[in-house]
């Protein structure tokens, strides 16, 4: 089965994209895993066990060294990352977490506004200094230009 690349070009479909049934199966699997909270603990345990053994690392390295597998992994990741992010966006607990973190940051900034105030002051001062220096430099150029013009008119060097 031929699957077009997102940019419209035709790649090597059988190697770069899991297509048809495999793709739908992968989508369904990820959707279930994201939606099912019970799976979290299971995934956590599996991941911990895998991380502790060096077998996973060796397996992954060996797999990624094979170009056809590496391409398939890239394609699978590309395909699933968007779905995972989408699912996370809809997750109320994640929203709650983000809101809590934002509130914590805002509270911290309210209690300790000095760094932000200092930052704004430095920025304003820097802009004022730049403006002042450009005005001064322009005035000096105008001084020289006026003097040169008068000397030329008077026939002086």
């Amino acid at each position, binding site marked *: 089965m031929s699957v077009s690349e997102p940019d419209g070009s035709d790649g090597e479909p059988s190697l770069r994209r899991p297509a048809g049934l495999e793709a739908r199966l992968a989508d369904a699997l990820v959707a279930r895993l994201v939606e099912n909270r019970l799976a979290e603990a299971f995934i956590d345990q599996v991941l911990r066990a895998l991380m502790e053994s060096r077998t996973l690392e060796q397996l992954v390295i060996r797999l990624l060294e094979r170009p056809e597998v590496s391409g398939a992994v890239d394609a699978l990741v590309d395909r699933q990352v968007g779905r995972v992010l989408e699912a996370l966006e809809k997750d109320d607990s994640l929203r709650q977490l983000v809101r809590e973190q934002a509130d914590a940051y805002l509270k911290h900034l309210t209690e300790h506004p000095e760094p932000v105030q200092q930052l704004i002051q430095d920025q304003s001062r820097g802009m004022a*200094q730049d403006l*002042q*220096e450009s*005005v*001064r*430099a322009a*005035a*000096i150029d*105008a*001084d*020289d230009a*006026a*003097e040169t013009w*008068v*000397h030329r008119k*008077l026939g*002086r060097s």
Partner: protein
Amino acid sequence: MTPRYAGLVTRGAARLVDMALLAVLVGGAGWLAQQFLGADAAGCAPAESWWQLRRHLCQFLPYVIPLAAVWFPVLYYVLFWATAGKTPGMALLGLRLLRSNGGKVGPVTALKRFLAVTLSMATLGLGFLMVLVTERRRTLHDLLAGTVVVYDWGDAARARAGRIGV
């Protein structure tokens, strides 16, 4: 390092800034006097006793603005030149007033220079334009008071700009 003497445009811009500030000061003083003494001098109640200070001062309201217009510029220029070596306008444009030997300007020299400025004005501005043709870019009042005006951006600004040898 040899100082660079300031030219006509920079000095003129500094003077314009100072004149604007003086206008605000004189206008502000007049407004404050009117608020304190009463808006209309003709409507001042006559003072019946010596402690009625406000009524006494109210009689002088018409003279407040002319007096401020005469004395504020004298105080402004002489004080700033003698204490800081620069007026706010000169500070903004990065200028400093020095004696012609490079020393600091004192109150007598500052007063002398202020009076000499009136002579530069009396020549219809020719005294100011002398800066274009004299050595060390000196005006008539600089020559009479023995002063020079140099560029002075301060160490930090000079280091950033890297273009002024003051």
